[in-house]
């Protein structure tokens, strides 16, 4: 068996290394701008002083009561249980805000330590999957734009990512531990709840039941620890949040969007003079075509699930988990960093998996490029920067990313869906239906583990 650090699969010997080099160069450019200019470039967050505040704002409510009534958060209680030991309580006595970030050196250390832990686990995971692409894929997942954005925000996606990786990756052998991590990942980011159904479609009933129970158990345990975060509180806050986000949006919502929801909202609202700039034809066309495009890919994912239900043995579980995550992430805007979850599972796919797989892998590299292509300058403001502890001249640009990036995410989902349907179609054509009784001895749902002894 040949070993080495370069892929040996025809064109892929060069494609993945070159794309990884492009990710390295764009990431290096962003860091160079931070060192020279004092702030990270677009599409990193547009307020230079707000660095890491997803971590420290949440930490305040981990050390103080009122997360669900005063802050009206949507985070399940696990977020506060997680952050409490990882941040220094005496720094959170007055009010949530930037002073806590200055005070809490332990919190800064643990946040970056968690990022490094993710690198460790990601490297080991990809070394287990395919040693020849491990270097490039693990580098791009860990140092690509989505994960750097999560680090810049200090977002709990980093914790969710760890659980997602351990729950769906090959590192852990214990099924119970993996189910626990799946449950924790869903508790960290509720929109991942659809990933449970990947197991049901694959007829892995024990996994489906175990992971579902794990979600419930983790929620109940952390709810008991925090003493707040009842389902009623979370639903009330969710309804209030949905009402607030249904208001007309600003162009800042486009900043690092992964869906067309902000674009359509901007086209149909009066908050930005898009009608004057682009004309009514453009607005009407965009408002019609973009939702149509999104709904088409959602339909493709549903069809892929139906196909996988017919022939679960030809579709890997991680792909169904990825598609289930994709359908949530293309339907509602959850932040640009969620792309780290999509690229992670897309990179589980082998390059030889087919044309659709190759398109998805290359697209995953492209969405990991740090930076954007600017269409035009909007305005420049003087901000107080945090990372440079001084002033920053920050220029806001209208960029191509918010229009292109959602299309790339849709392309990944569509490619994986088409590949799934093609694999099922090919299996049906070659094998027909004669062996479809092969699942007759499967465990039926909710039996408590008793095998089905019924004969066909």
């Amino acid at each position, binding site marked *: 068996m040949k070993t080495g650090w370069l892929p040996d699969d025809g064109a892929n010997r060069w494609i993945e290394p070159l794309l990884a080099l492009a990710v390295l160069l764009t990431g290096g450019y962003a860091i160079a701008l*931070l060192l020279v200019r004092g702030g990270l470039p677009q599409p990193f967050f547009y307020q230079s002083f707000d660095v890491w505040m997803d971590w420290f704002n949440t930490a305040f409510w981990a050390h103080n009561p009122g997360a669900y009534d005063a802050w009206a958060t949507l985070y399940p209680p696990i977020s506060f249980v997680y952050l409490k030991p990882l941040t220094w309580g005496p720094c959170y006595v007055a009010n949530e805000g930037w002073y806590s970030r200055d005070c809490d050196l332990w919190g800064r250390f643990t946040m970056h330590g968690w990022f490094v832990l993710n690198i460790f686990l990601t490297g080991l995971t990809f070394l287990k999957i395919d040693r020849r692409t491990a270097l490039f894929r693990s580098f791009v997942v860990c140092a690509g734009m989505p994960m750097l954005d999560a680090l810049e925000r200090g977002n709990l996606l980093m914790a969710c990512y760890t659980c997602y990786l351990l729950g769906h990756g090959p590192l852990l052998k214990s099924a119970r531990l993996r189910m626990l991590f799946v449950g924790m990942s869903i508790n960290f980011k509720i929109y991942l709840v659809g990933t449970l159904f990947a197991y049901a479609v694959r007829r892995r009933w024990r996994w489906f039941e175990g992971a579902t129970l794990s979600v419930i158990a983790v929620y109940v345990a952390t709810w008991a620890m925090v003493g707040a975060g009842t389902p009623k509180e979370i639903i009330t806050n969710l309804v209030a949040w949905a009402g607030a986000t249904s208001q007309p949006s600003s162009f800042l919502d486009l900043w690092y969007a992964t869906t067309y929801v902000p674009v359509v909202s901007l086209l149909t609202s009066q908050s930005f003079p898009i009608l004057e700039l682009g004309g009514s034809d453009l607005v009407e066309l965009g408002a019609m075509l973009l939702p149509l495009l999104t709904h088409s890919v959602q339909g493709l994912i549903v069809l892929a699930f139906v196909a996988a239900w017919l022939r679960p043995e030809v579709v890997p579980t991680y792909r169904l988990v990825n598609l289930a995550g994709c359908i949530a992430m293309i339907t509602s805007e959850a932040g640009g960093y969620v792309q780290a979850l999509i690229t992670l599972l897309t990179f589980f796919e082998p390059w030889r998996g087919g044309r659709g797989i190759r398109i998805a892998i290359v697209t995953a590299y492209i969405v990991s490029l740090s930076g954007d292509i600017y269409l035009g300058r909007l305005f420049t403001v003087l901000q107080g920067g945090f990372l440079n502890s001084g002033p920053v001249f920050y220029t806001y640009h209208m960029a191509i990313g918010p229009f292109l990036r959602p299309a790339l995410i849709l392309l990944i989902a569509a490619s994986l869906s088409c590949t799934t349907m093609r694999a099922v179609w090919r299996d049906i054509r070659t094998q027909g239906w004669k062996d479809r009784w092969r699942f007759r001895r499967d465990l039926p749902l909710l039996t408590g583990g008793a095998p089905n002894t019924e004969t066909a």
Partner: protein
Amino acid sequence: MPFASPEDPSPAKRNARNRHARDIWDMIVVCALVSIVIAIVLYFAGAFRLSTG
């Protein structure tokens, strides 16, 4: 070796274990280097100066 005990694994299994152990050490070295890079970037960017208070 059909009756090999866990203390005496097959050569293939032993190689896999050794490789996994080497991978863990490699990743520890990588993570140490990344930690140094992060610290250097934050230091030279100026993040260790307390800017708010």
